[in-house]
């Protein structure tokens, strides 16, 4: 189970990182840099979690994930009031210049990662215990990959880059 938790953490971080990189590609400059840095960091951390024997920097990762989720929630809550007075912003469906759906998708993945990291921290830093059997392991990886790919694909499709890509399919 411990190996699967680390694998799911890696997959979740990879998915969130990909979404943030894709959102950064179509974001204004002020949002582009932090989103691109966050996305790149998540991809690197995800690969490290998959490749390593323990979850890397769990406390820092938990802090970053919590802050990122809270930032999206804060913008969503504060933005809801602003949107009531700004029909154009509501119509565009953006969170302070970033599209809402992919940011929420990434936030869901980060929230799941934060919950798993909290479990890891409670159980101790090294979670590499007894290896699961081959088929339970593959089933867990497939289930995790399906969930992450589903959320990530839907989120990527809702980014401005993904929307352009969807239009490109029509011809």
């Amino acid at each position, binding site marked *: 189970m411990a*190996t699967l938790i*680390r*694998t799911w953490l*890696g*997959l979740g971080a*990879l*998915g969130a990182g*990909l979404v943030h*990189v*894709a959102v950064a*590609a179509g974001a204004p400059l002020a949002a582009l840099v932090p989103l691109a840095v966050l996305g790149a960091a998540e991809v690197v951390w995800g*690969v490290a979690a*998959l*490749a390593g*024997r323990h979850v890397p920097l769990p406390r820092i990762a938990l802090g970053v994930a919590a802050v990122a989720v809270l930032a999206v929630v804060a913008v969503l809550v504060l933005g809801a009031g602003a949107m009531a007075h700004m029909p154009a912003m509501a119509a565009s469906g953006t969170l302070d210049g970033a599209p809402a759906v992919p940011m929420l998708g990434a936030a869901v993945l980060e929230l799941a990662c934060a919950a798993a990291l909290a479990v890891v921290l409670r159980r101790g830093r090294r979670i590499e215990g007894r*290896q699961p059997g*081959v088929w339970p*392991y*593959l089933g867990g*990886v*497939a289930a*995790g*990959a399906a969930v*992450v*790919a589903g959320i*990530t*694909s839907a989120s*990527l*499709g809702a*980014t401005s*880059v*993904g929307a*352009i*890509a*969807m239009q*490109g*399919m*029509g*011809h």
Partner: protein
Amino acid sequence: MSTTATPARGTRFGASPNRIVATVFGVVYLLVGLIGFFWTSGVPFAGPGDGSSNLILGVFEVNPLHNVAHLLIGIALVIAGTANAPAAKSTNTTIGAVYLLLGILGFFLAANHGSALNFLSLNTPDHFLHLASAVVLLAVGLGADRRAETRVAAAV
């Protein structure tokens, strides 16, 4: 203490997640590469197609070069999967990394579908499939088949 991430060469097929995944994905990519040619008659060997007739199952866009790439990837995965665990682990990781890069670049490339850079005739469902493949291959390639590592670490 020294450790190695190389799994045991003699790991039998049913005990190696990497060998299983490499073989299954390899067979699927081989089949996709073969049936892809049924949808690419009249399509240029390389470069973007018109996005209407060259769609496998009406979804995944291909051209002959894309089919050849699927065949080569399928062959590499099947050979590695049937050979031994270290080969499967390396191949899964390498192809997973390439697919991840392709999936990321693909979303930027998709904005210019008709560009000459789109020489594999990729569309958005292709990018999604490549990302899903990358996730599974990387997860298994990086994370599985570490029994030899554990044994070496314990013995030293």
